[in-house]
C-alpha cells in the first residue's frame, strides 16, 4: 500500500512555527500573564478584554487559535464562539472556564469550541493544548495518515504494526492507541489529561498517576534494546515523543 509519510522534520515535528493567538479574557491580570507566558514560549498573543472587542478581533485577525474565557462582559464566551461559527470563522477555539463540570464542558463544545480547559489550570497544560489545536488547524484538510514515522519508529494504523528500526514491537491495543496519539503529536508536549481524554475518552481527574504507569510501560517496550529513548518526560507538563537530538542524525 502506498502511504504518505508526512514527516520532513527529523525530530518528528510537523509544525514548529510560532502561533498567533488571541486571548479574550476580562481579567486583565490573567490576560497579561498569559500574553507574557506565550511570548516567552515564542508565540505572538493579542488580547481583548470583553466579548465584543474579542469578536471583532477574532473576525478580522488571522489567528491560529482563540483562547476564550467563558464569562465575559458584553458578550459571553459561548455566544461569541457560536456567532463566530455562524460567520464561518473556523479558527480553533479553546474555552477557559471556572465551571469545570461535565455538563459545562459539553455545552462549551456544543457551542463550537474545540477544547475546554477548566480554571485553574497549569500554563503548561494550556500551552500543550493550544499547540495541539494550532497544529490540527495546519494539518486539517489532509486525510489522516495511515502511517506515522518518527526517526526509526514506525506505526502502521491499518495493520496495527509498530516497528523500530525494522524490528516489530508487539503492543496491547490500548498501548497502540497511546503511541498513535503520541506519534500524531510528535515533537509536541502532550499532557496527562490530554492522553486520558483522547486515549481513554475520559475527562475526569483520576487522582493518581495512572497515565504515568501506562506511558512507562509503553516506553519500556519501545526503548528496550535501543540506546536512545523516544518518549521523553517533560517535567511539570507531560510527555513528548521525539528523536533525541544527539541521536538524530
Amino acid at each position, binding site marked *: 500500500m502506498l502511504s504518505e509519510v508526512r514527516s520532513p522534520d527529523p525530530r518528528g515535528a510537523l509544525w514548529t512555527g510560532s502561533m498567533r493567538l488571541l486571548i479574550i479574557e476580562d481579567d486583565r491580570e490573567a490576560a497579561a500573564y498569559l500574553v507574557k507566558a506565550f511570548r516567552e514560549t515564542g508565540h505572538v498573543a493579542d488580547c481583548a478584554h470583553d466579548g465584543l472587542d474579542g469578536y471583532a478581533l477574532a473576525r478580522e485577525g488571522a489567528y491560529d487559535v482563540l483562547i476564550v474565557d467563558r464569562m465575559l462582559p458584553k458578550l459571553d464566551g459561548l455566544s461569541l464562539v457560536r456567532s463566530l461559527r455562524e460567520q464561518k470563522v473556523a479558527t480553533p477555539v479553546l474555552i477557559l472556564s471556572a465551571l469545570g463540570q*461535565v*455538563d459545562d464542558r459539553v455545552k462549551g463544545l456544543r457551542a463550537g469550541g474545540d477544547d475546554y480547559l477548566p480554571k485553574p489550570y497549569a500554563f503548561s497544560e494550556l500551552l500543550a493544548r493550544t499547540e495541539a489545536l494550532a497544529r490540527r488547524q495546519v494539518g486539517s484538510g489532509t486525510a489522516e495518515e495511515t502511517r506515522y514515522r518518527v526517526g526509526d519508529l514506525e506505526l502502521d494504523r491499518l495493520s496495527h504494526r509498530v516497528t523500530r528500526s525494522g524490528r516489530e514491537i508487539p503492543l496491547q491495543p490500548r498501548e497502540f492507541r497511546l503511541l498513535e496519539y503520541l506519534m500524531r503529536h510528535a515533537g509536541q508536549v502532550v499532557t496527562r489529561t490530554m492522553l486520558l481524554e483522547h486515549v481513554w475518552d475520559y475527562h475526569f481527574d*483520576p*487522582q*493518581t498517576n*495512572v497515565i504515568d504507569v*501506562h506511558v512507562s510501560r509503553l516506553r519500556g517496550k519501545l526503548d528496550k534494546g535501543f540506546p536512545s529513548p523516544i518518549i521523553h518526560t517533560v517535567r511539570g507538563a507531560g510527555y513528548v515523543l521525539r528523536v533525541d537530538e544527539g541521536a538524530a542524525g
Partner: protein
Amino acid sequence: MNRLPIDALNSPETGAARFQKLFRTTAFKLSLAYLAIFTLCAFLALGYVAWNARAVLDDQIVSTIDAEINGLSEQYNAGGLRRLISVVERRSREPGASLYLVTTAGGDHVVGNVGYVPAAILATPGQSETRYGRNDSDAEAHRAIVRVFTLPGGFRLLVGRDTEERDRLRAVIGRAFGTSVAAIVLLGVIGGWLAASRVLRRVDAMTQTTRAIMAGDLDGRLHVAGNGDELDRLASSLNQMLERIGELMRGMRDVSDNIAHDLKTPLTRLRNRADEALRRPSTPDELRAALEAVIDEGDGLIRIFNALLMIARLEAGSAREIMAPLDLGAAARSVAELYEALAEDQGFTLDVAAQDGVVVEANRELIGQALANLVDNALKYGAPPEGGPGRIAVSVWREGGRARLAVSDSGPGIPEGERTHVLARFVRLEQSRSRPGLGVGLSLVNAVVRLHRGTLHLRDNGPGLRVEVVLPLAQDDAADAVDLERLKTR
C-alpha cells in the same frame, strides 16, 4: 375611612387598597356571579307565580261577569229593558257590587255605577280591559274587565268587575320580589365579603410568612389549618418545597463548611512551605524545589476543591440532563483497564467479572469517575494488613431487576459500627485516614450514585471492604429488548 373588621389585621395597607384587594379576590368575584344567578332565579320564580296568579284571578273575574250577565239576561228576557234597568239600578247600589252601565245609543248615561268609560269601549261589543271612573270626577282612576252588549234600540249594556284586587296582588308580588332581591344582594355581598376576607386573611398570612422566609427566616413554615381545603393543600405542598430547599441549603452550607475545614490543613501546609523557603537562605535549586512543592500542594488543593464542588453540583441535581444508556459492564472494564497497570505495579491483582447487557441510564463520565474513585480507594486502602498481594475485584451483574456493581478489596475493611458513620459523614474527609481521598472520594461516589437514583452500600468482603452500588436498569431499553424478543418468536 370606616373602621373595617380587617383593620384588626394591622396590615400596612390603607383601607382603600384593602377594599380593592378584597374586590379582586376570587372568592368575592365568585360571590358576585352567584348573586347575579340567584337574583335571576328569584325573578323567574316570582314572575311565574305572578303570571299564574293573574291568570287565576282573571278567570275568576270573567266567570263572575258571566254569572252577572246570565242573571241580567234572564231579567231582560222576563221583563225587557225596563226590568233590566231597574235590576241594574238596584244591584249598582249593593255594597261590593260589580260594575254596571246602561247607555243610550248616543252614549248617554241611563243607569249604573260607572261614571266614565272610554267611548271606544262602549262602541265595540265584547270583552276588554279598560280604565274607568266611578263618577265623572275620577275619570280614569280605576281599571276593570268589562263586557259590552248592544241591546235592541241601540242601548248598550256594560257589565264588568274592578281589577283592584288583582292589581293589589301584583303589587304584593312586586314588593316580595324587591324585598327578596334586596335580601339576596345583601346576604350575597356579606357572604362574599366574609368568604373573601377569610380567604384573603389566610393568603395574607401566607404572604407574610413567605416574606419572612425571603427575609431570612428559613425555618418559617406556612400555617396549615388542618381542614384539608385547597389552601391547606397549597400550604402543605409549599411547606414541602421549603423543606426541600432548606435541605439543599443545609447541604450547601455543610459543603462550604467542609470545604473550609478540608482546605485549611493543606493551605496551612502550603503556606508553611513557602514561608520556610523564604526564611532560610537557599540555593536556587532549593528554592526551585520549594516552589515545585508549593505547586504540588496547590494542585492537590484544586483537586479537593473540584471534587467538593462537583459533589455540591451533583447533590443539587444538575447534570441529570446529559444521561444516556450506558453498558455498565463496558464502563467497568474500561476503568479497570485504565487502572490495571497501576494496580499491578502496586502489587495488586485487578479482576473484572461483568455480565453483558447490564444497561443503565447514566452519565458515562460520572460513572467512570465513581468507578475510578472506588478502584483508587481500593488501591490506597485495600492491601492485606498482613502483607502479600492485594486483590481487587470489580463485578457487574443484574439482580432483582436492578443493575449492581461492586468493587471489593482485601484490606482491613471498615468495622461495621463505623460504616454508617462513614456514610453519615460522607462529605467530610476521613480524619482517621491520614491520606486524603477516601472521604471526598466516597462522597463523590455517593453523590454520583444518588444522582443516578441508586443506592450505595458498604459491606464486609470477609476480609476487606466491598462497596456495592445498586442502580435502576434503563427501563426503556429493557422493554424494547423484550418486545424485540417477542417479535422474533412470532
